[in-house]
């Protein structure tokens, strides 16, 4: 992940008032995790799977603090169950930041399913998302995810693709 993109994500999270980030690390966003861990204004919580991270973020929402779930897009598959129950059943929102593994240009066979499933799953869940390809678009996109999720009380997602992560 490129340094200007890392800076833009963190700046966007701070603009939105995020103080807690749950993550399960992956390789495309590895620089982001290091920067988040080092930031004194953000508490990072490492989780054992993305579903657990989504549920923790839901609890943070109920506390009045703001959280983000950062992950590889394969984590969306692991998180669908708690996301469906929290979002559709109770209106407890989770804002997600994920990389676009499996996008055109992917050169790992194991990552192809991540690309094939991400957008259909987001659409099936009726989760609005924005795929950003340029670092200059990240900060505003993060702000708009939080604005939408705190108006709808439903999940939203920022997807980091293209030259932002490679």
């Amino acid at each position, binding site marked *: 992940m490129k340094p200007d993109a890392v800076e833009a994500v963190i700046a966007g999270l701070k603009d939105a008032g995020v103080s807690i980030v749950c993550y399960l690390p992956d390789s495309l966003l590895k620089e982001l995790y290091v920067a988040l861990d080092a930031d004194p204004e953000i508490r990072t919580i490492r989780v054992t799977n993305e*579903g657990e991270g989504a*549920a923790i973020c839901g*609890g943070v929402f*109920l506390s009045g603090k703001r959280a983000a779930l950062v992950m590889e897009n394969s984590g969306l598959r692991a998180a669908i169950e708690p996301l469906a129950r929290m979002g559709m059943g*109770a*209106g407890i929102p989770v804002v997600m930041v994920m990389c676009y593994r499996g996008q055109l240009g992917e050169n790992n066979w194991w990552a192809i399913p991540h690309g094939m499933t991400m957008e259909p799953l987001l659409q099936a869940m009726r989760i609005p998302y924005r795929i950003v390809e340029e670092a200059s678009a990240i900060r505003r996109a993060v702000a708009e995810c939080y604005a939408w999720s705190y108006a709808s009380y439903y999940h939203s997602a920022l997807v980091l693709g293209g030259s932002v992560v490679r």
Partner: protein
Amino acid sequence: MTRYECMQALAARLRDELVVLSLGGSVDEWYNAAPHMRAASLFQQQLGCVTPQAFGLAAGLPHRRIVSLDTDGGMMFNLGILATLANERPENLLVIVWDNACYLSIGGPPTHTASGLVDIAAIGRGAGLEHAYTAESLADFDALCAQGLATAAPFLVVAKVEAVVQPGIRRKHSDGREDKYIFVRHVEATEGIVIMGPSEHN
């Protein structure tokens, strides 16, 4: 011992804590056993989410005691949260696991603890929790709750309870969405904060 009598004992110890609880028979039981905690309790229907949500609350409100009322089936659904709690060490989180060795709300098929081999408290200790205990009697359960509510570390109590639902209790009518609003408004009022505020325009 029954879950309901354990709930009555726990309820008597709670005042300004926040509670997150699981699905099934425990919903109506807690609704009846702890009427003074009704608005302070998040009634959800989320297997595997209860203790993670409670931990999220604990992380967001570190000055406030949070109680997770989880189940054997719910905890087995996501054992990883025990390792996360061990690493994160929230000082304000008491986790109760009602272990009746079955999925009672769907008629009672066995959970993994029914074999007698699976020990959730031992799993908690293995995950790194210093305080993870099993309660076999009401007196033990009550004493562990007292200890857990006063300990500045994550505290796990696995209550071995009978597979029965308290007869003759009132049903809770609200759904998860209404319950969330009730809970959020309670947190807002008691913390003096706004969580779900007004839109830009009405």
